[in-house]
């Protein structure tokens, strides 16, 4: 199997993150690595840098990883997590400006088709442009 771009889903709610990942798997299949996380370090609603780093590691692919987020704190924490990766990995991870569910499905579809990280991001972000 050739490598595909990995997908990470970061929501304030673990239920939303898991549900989104379930939808991606059902619609796109299992050839794309999908990891998800949600919840703050205390177990409440929120996001959490260590869990995001862990999810990036799980979804890691030499072609890179695209992250889909829900609200502001998820984006800020995801950007922070990317900066804390080893330098050689940082440039291979992008945070997409796209709605989380639709963006994750579109990104995973593009990734499954062999798209590059930039193509995966562009397809997800088209959803915000329209």
């Amino acid at each position, binding site marked *: 199997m050739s490598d595909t771009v990995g997908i990470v889903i970061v929501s304030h709610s673990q239920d939303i993150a898991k549900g989104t990942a379930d939808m991606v798997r059902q619609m796109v299949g299992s050839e794309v690595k999908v990891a998800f996380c949600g919840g703050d370090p205390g177990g409440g609603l929120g996001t959490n840098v260590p869990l995001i780093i862990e999810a990036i590691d799980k979804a890691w692919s030499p072609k890179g990883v695209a992250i889909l987020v829900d609200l502001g704190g998820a984006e800020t924490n995801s950007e*922070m997590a990317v900066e804390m990766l080893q330098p050689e990995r940082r440039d291979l991870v992008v945070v997409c400006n796209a709605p989380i569910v639709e963006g994750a499905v579109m990104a995973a579809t593009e990734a499954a088709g062999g798209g590059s990280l930039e193509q995966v991001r562009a397809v997800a972000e088209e959803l915000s442009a329209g």
Partner: protein
Amino acid sequence: MSLEPETLKSLVKAAAEKVIASAPELTALDQAIGDGDHGANMKRGFEAVLGKLDVIGSQPLGEAFKTIGKTLVMTVGGASGPLYGSFFLAAGDSLLQSRDLPDDVAEVFACGIGAVRARGRSAPGEKTMLDVLVPVLETLTAAAGKPDLLNRVRETASEAVARTAPMQATKGRASFLGARSIGHIDPGARSSCVLVQAVCDTLEARQ
């Protein structure tokens, strides 16, 4: 001026305890215009900082700031984790390997603010913590070396928090409220004020 490990520890301890004690107030402010988690998030982050107090006291100043920053990033949970975390990480970078504060404390503070602006892609006037941090920096610069510096910083911080009430939020969760964010003071501005004032109070008590 050099900063003895005990002084640094007492400053960090006082600031952390003050923020933890302010958690209910911060939560109430955040319930009005955000998602109501600012108090709990800051409390969790600064409790973790308190847990590392001995490590922080044993490190050169720059490293100590970076430990505070990294701890906040990893434990706060909300957007305020990366924002406050980046402040301390960048301030720490500017101090690296030094136990002495440079003559110009404002310079270190400015490095921290630069990181907050970049992380939040925001500027003063948008109803955020920057609306306290930037005026405090201006006072640190304008009143450097003056005997009433600490008082002026404290006053600046209080006045700056009050000035966030009429602002309309354009960043963060409060921006979803549009004009309805007007009339409430910003929780992040308030937590910044609590931190700044705790540091001023502690320095004053040691003089």
